């Protein structure tokens, strides 16, 4: 479908739930608009989300709330150093009555998975989860089981307390469509959080959507029009992260060890479409690309030792790229 007017009308109709979800989440989460928006983008783009932030910023609560607004399965897995892959995906258990093995499915067989503190579990557990995220299927014994749609993994990670953690390798981090960094709330929001707690008011979000609504909305998101000029803009940004010296950014050459992969370009395009959908538009504009650029690229740009020594972050590099690449 290429008629923008029709797409716009469809979006107007299908995106009404965005306001409802946002409203339900606002009842529970004070502030953190960007986090809520990013969760919606992940939900609409079929992309998994990695949330990073210091403890106490409502990461787990936000994911919990999002899951509770949708009438779908929800599992929470607390990652610990003694967790085993079978604890995540499931295992076969001997049945004395039948004399055979019964399959006991793990918590991954759900629609929304909250992988809390993903970097606390060893690599084999992380890879079991990340493989399921990528393949959308799990093999137990000789049988392969498809995971139910919508399937969304939201993992949290604590940037401090690195002792006893297992940092995710770059190849596995790349499987998360978005890496959202949560910052502290502003003064007004923090005051409101105190008031809520002092009054003992802990509102709960209502279940307002069905999984089918999300699947339907995803179809509409796919139809959001992206002009070739926007595609070129995305490619220019990703290429600038790979070859900064060819894009007037020679100063970044020694700071970037590796740039965004083709998966980054795909994720940028998908996330931009979802953002346009949230903004009730049937087409993507450069604003949409720029709005999601940080969350899509920050974990896909490798920093060199020089950059780390100079305390340069991937966000600063992305800002330099966005300020240099010409907007169409």
């Amino acid at each position, binding site marked *: 479908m290429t008629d923008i007017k029709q797409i716009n009308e469809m979006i107007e109709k299908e995106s009404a739930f965005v306001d409802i979800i946002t409203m339900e989440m606002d009842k529970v989460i004070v502030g953190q608009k960007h986090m809520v928006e990013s969760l919606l983008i992940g939900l609409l783009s079929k992309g998994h989300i990695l949330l990073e932030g210091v403890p106490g910023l409502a990461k787990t609560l936000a994911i919990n709330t999002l899951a509770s607004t949708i009438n779908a399965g929800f599992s929470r897995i607390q990652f610990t150093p003694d967790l085993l892959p079978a604890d995540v995906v499931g295992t076969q258990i001997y049945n004395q009555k039948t004399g055979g093995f019964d399959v006991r499915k793990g918590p991954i067989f759900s629609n929304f998975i909250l992988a809390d503190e993903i970097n606390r579990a060893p690599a084999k557990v992380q890879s079991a989860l990340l493989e399921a995220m990528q393949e959308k299927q799990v093999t137990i014994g000789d049988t392969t089981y498809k995971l139910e749609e919508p399937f969304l993994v939201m993992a949290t990670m604590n940037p401090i307390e690195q002792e006893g953690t297992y940092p995710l390798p770059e190849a596995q981090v790349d499987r998360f469509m978005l890496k959202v960094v949560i910052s502290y709330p502003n003064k007004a929001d923090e005051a409101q959080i105190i008031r809520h707690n002092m009054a003992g008011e802990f509102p709960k979000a209502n279940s307002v959507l069905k999984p089918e609504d999300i699947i339907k909305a995803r179809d509409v998101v796919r139809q959001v*029009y992206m*002009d070739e000029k*926007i595609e070129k803009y995305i490619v220019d940004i990703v290429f600038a992260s790979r070859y900064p010296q*060819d894009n007037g950014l*020679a100063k970044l050459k020694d700071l970037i060890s590796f740039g965004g992969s083709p998966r980054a370009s795909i994720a940028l395009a998908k996330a931009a479409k979802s953002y346009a959908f949230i903004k009730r538009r*049937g087409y*993507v*504009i450069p*604003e949409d690309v720029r709005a999601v650029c940080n969350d899509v690229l920050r974990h896909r740009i490798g920093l060199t030792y020089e950059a780390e020594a100079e305390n340069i972050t991937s966000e600063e590099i992305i800002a330099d790229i966005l300020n240099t690449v010409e*907007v169409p």
Partner: protein
Amino acid sequence: MRTRFEDRGLRFKRVIASTALQSLAMKRIASFLAITVLLLSSAVAQNATVKAELDSTQILIGDQVNLDLTVEFNDMIPVAWPTFKDTITGQLEIVKVSIPDTIKKETGETIIHQRLVLTSFDTGFIALPPIAFMFNADSAQTLATEPLLIFVSDIPVEMEADIKDIKEPYDVPFNWQSLIKWGLLALLVIALIVAGILLWKKYRKVPEAPKTRLKPKRPAHEIALEELEELRHKKLWQNNQTKQFYIELSDIVREYIEFRFDVLALEMTTQETVSALKLKGLDETKTQSLKQMLQMADLAKFAKYTPISNENEQCFDIARAFVNATLVMPLDEPKVEQGKG
């Protein structure tokens, strides 16, 4: 009865008598051997001579001396040339042994010569024993050289003189061949480096020059107005090239904003451009109409929207009006105060 002392004296006399007898027997054997060797030598001597000569019989400790061995013979064939190892005696060390050199004389005689370089690190008289040469394997006749004597002296120490420093290392003798060899090698290395540099310069990937937009010397509004006129004459939207019309229109306006307001408008989105202009102090009415025009351009560029003729003309007028309303004439620019003496 004999006393203990008498017994001892008797035993002593017996020992002396026995030793004298043994000595006599040894002398006789030695005389016999000497006569035998002399007889043999005289038989061989008729046809061959062996000679050992030192070029010096007195050396300083550690110095080297040449020992020349010469054998001259007629029809006899030398069957066993003595073999030398590290030393001749324990005190004389062999530094170098040359290959035996054979010379045939016209008279039919054959001379074989070999030179040994000897040294010693012991002082005093050192005897060089006779060196034996065997002739004719069948008869096993032997000829030996004369024994020689070398005096190895120590360096005299002047106890009252000052302590002297050790000698400087010997200079390596100048060698033209070596100089030419190393010179050619150096030239070859230099030539390879130069060739490498030339090849690298020829085939290297020249990095693209960074994109820089130089501020034009002419006022930004002049360029913008000229380009707007050119765009009008192109009649793009009249020829169903509405998207291209808006691409060019927005580019002209954003370029004007970049040079006029020092805002990186070409790298900014519509919203960012408008916000940046507000920060520069531009009033709401001007930014509002500009935003309207840029949003229309975004629709045409990114949303396949085809504005109607009136909208196209309106956007064009907004762009021209914006330039005219914000232009800075050269006279308006603040004058730089000249230095006061």
